[in-house]
């Protein structure tokens, strides 16, 4: 048999004749002598790691794992710890932060208000977003372009998007001026709950369309035609086929809108009135003006509890929130 063209090449280690796996560390070291420079050392390292699959996995998964644990998970745990301390980090252990919060009618009203606004925003965004995703998937041929036009605003600055609405909604702003030109009375919507709802709808709509779009794309169009063929009209088909089959996407969208709304402070701060406080703003106050960090941490924990409850509910209902990456929504 003809000799392998590889075996007379020096870059391939002596084990190129197929006799052994380039086995022990000692062999690796001697290989390095014949190999040329950096490439040789790198291929030694590859060989070294090939025989230690655990070390190889650790060297790749370890750094990101460690960083996410240390700089994301641990801070959240630290927040839990601080929330039981009085007045400052390292203060005496206390439950006062929680009892103070949970017995204050003012704060509970704020939580309830935040909850109501979040529910309204979620309902509006889910309705409009689903309608949009459905219209794009089922009735448009230029889906890529449309989808791009929907997500692009999402990638611009949140504050800028709020600021755009200040331009429009303020008294004598774009909206009022336009109404004025048409002979209609001014609305002066800025600093009202309506402004807050518009602002939230504006920022979350692109985000919610994505899971809706993904689940609707995955829906087999033949099912809809089969349903119509079997005598169901488009409305009944939608209610009995389309909606149930895309419910996971709907739940994912709802979670993606509700949670950040519940924790938000930018939108109510910029568009809402001074007496329309949301819970996120209370936290901001503790860190930016009142400087009672442990109390802020306790409120952070309260928000987290709401979030966790919601996530558990959503997972029970079948939202694929943690099916990261490969699967759609």
């Amino acid at each position, binding site marked *: 048999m003809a000799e392998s063209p590889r075996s007379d090449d020096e870059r391939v280690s002596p084990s190129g004749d197929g006799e052994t796996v380039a086995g022990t560390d000692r062999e690796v070291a001697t290989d390095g002598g014949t190999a040329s420079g950096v490439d040789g050392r790198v291929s030694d390292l590859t060989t070294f790691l090939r025989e230690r699959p655990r070390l190889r996995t650790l060297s790749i998964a370890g750094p990101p794992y460690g960083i996410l644990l240390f700089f994301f998970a641990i801070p*959240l745990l630290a927040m839990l710890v601080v929330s039981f301390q009085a007045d400052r980090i390292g203060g005496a252990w206390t439950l006062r932060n929680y009892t103070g919060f949970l017995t204050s009618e003012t704060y509970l009203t704020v939580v309830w208000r935040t909850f109501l606004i979040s529910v309204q925003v979620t309902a509006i965004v889910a309705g409009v977003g689903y309608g949009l995703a459905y219209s794009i998937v089922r009735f448009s041929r230029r889906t890529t372009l449309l989808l791009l036009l929907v*997500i692009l605003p999402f990638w611009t600055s949140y504050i800028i998007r709020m600021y755009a609405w200040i331009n429009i909604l303020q008294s004598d702003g774009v909206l009022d001026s336009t109404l004025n030109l048409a002979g209609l009375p001014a609305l002066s919507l800025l600093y009202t709950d309506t402004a807050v709802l518009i602002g939230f709808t504006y920022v979350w709509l692109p985000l919610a369309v994505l899971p809706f779009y993904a689940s609707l794309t995955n829906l087999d169009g033949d099912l809809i035609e089969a349903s119509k063929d079997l005598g169901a009209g488009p409305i009944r088909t939608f209610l009995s086929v389309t909606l149930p089959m895309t419910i996971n996407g709907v739940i994912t969208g709802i979670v993606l809108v509700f949670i950040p709304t519940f924790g938000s402070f930018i939108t109510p701060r910029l568009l809402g009135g001074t007496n329309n406080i949301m819970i996120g703003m209370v936290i901001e106050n503790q860190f930016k003006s009142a400087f009672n960090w442990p109390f802020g941490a306790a409120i952070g924990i309260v928000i987290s509890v709401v979030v966790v409850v919601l996530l558990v509910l959503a997972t029970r209902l079948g939202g694929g929130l943690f099916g990261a990456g490969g699967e759609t929504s």
Partner: protein
Amino acid sequence: MSAVDRVTAPFERFAQAHASRMATVVIVAVLAFLWLPIAVLVFMSFADGGVLSFPPDQLTLRWYRVFLSNDAALDAIVTTLTISIPATGISVALSTMIAYAVDRYVFPGRSWLQLLATLPIIVPLVVTGIAMVLFFNGTLGLPDYVSVVIAHVIRTIPFATLVILPTFMSFDRRLEEASKDLGADEFETFRQVTLPNVFPGIVAGGLLAFTLSFNEFVYTYFVKGSGDPTLPVYIWNQIRYNVTPEVNVISVVFLAVAVSMVLAAVSLTRVDLIARR
């Protein structure tokens, strides 16, 4: 035909007949809702009279000149870039490692890694933001700059991973087998076959990470002390305390950055990668 059917039938027929037209109305209306405010913003950046007069008396480039001679705003851009560029690099490297590990290896804690890389999207920004200021500044006493870069890395990892992981998963691994079969070892295979094929996805992830980091406000707002503000923090202060027409110009800058980055990312991958979730 049941009584219910008799009632619903006209609606069903209407829906069937006009579905396409209704869809067009929805699409046009929502896109107008999404883009009109941005159009107004761009338009107002050329308005002569400043923030409070609409429609403007005349158009001008004055506010652009004001912006370009405003050192505070330009410094804010530089501050943002000195944070965003390293943060993007680190985030892309870590996200690539996450994608590679999750795609290739089965190891204990693999699903936890995936969860950890997704959670920063889900936990409200204000919660993570205060947790970071408590831990980075309060407990560890890290310098401001380091804290902010780390915060930006954490903020961008989920999005970069969201783009990079599918790129790895859709990469045909038989190409790697073919490469090894033809005599290339693991490292050479990664360098000559895997990397060229997943590179567009990694770059797209990087572009999106950069965009996100350039826009990042909440974490920065909490973690960063009173030093030089990043551009989003600068604009926040402007809006809250003294709105000038210059803010419109800065908005256009943000818009230009976002649009060019996202379009570049989209041209590198498919739009549905970014559309996922």
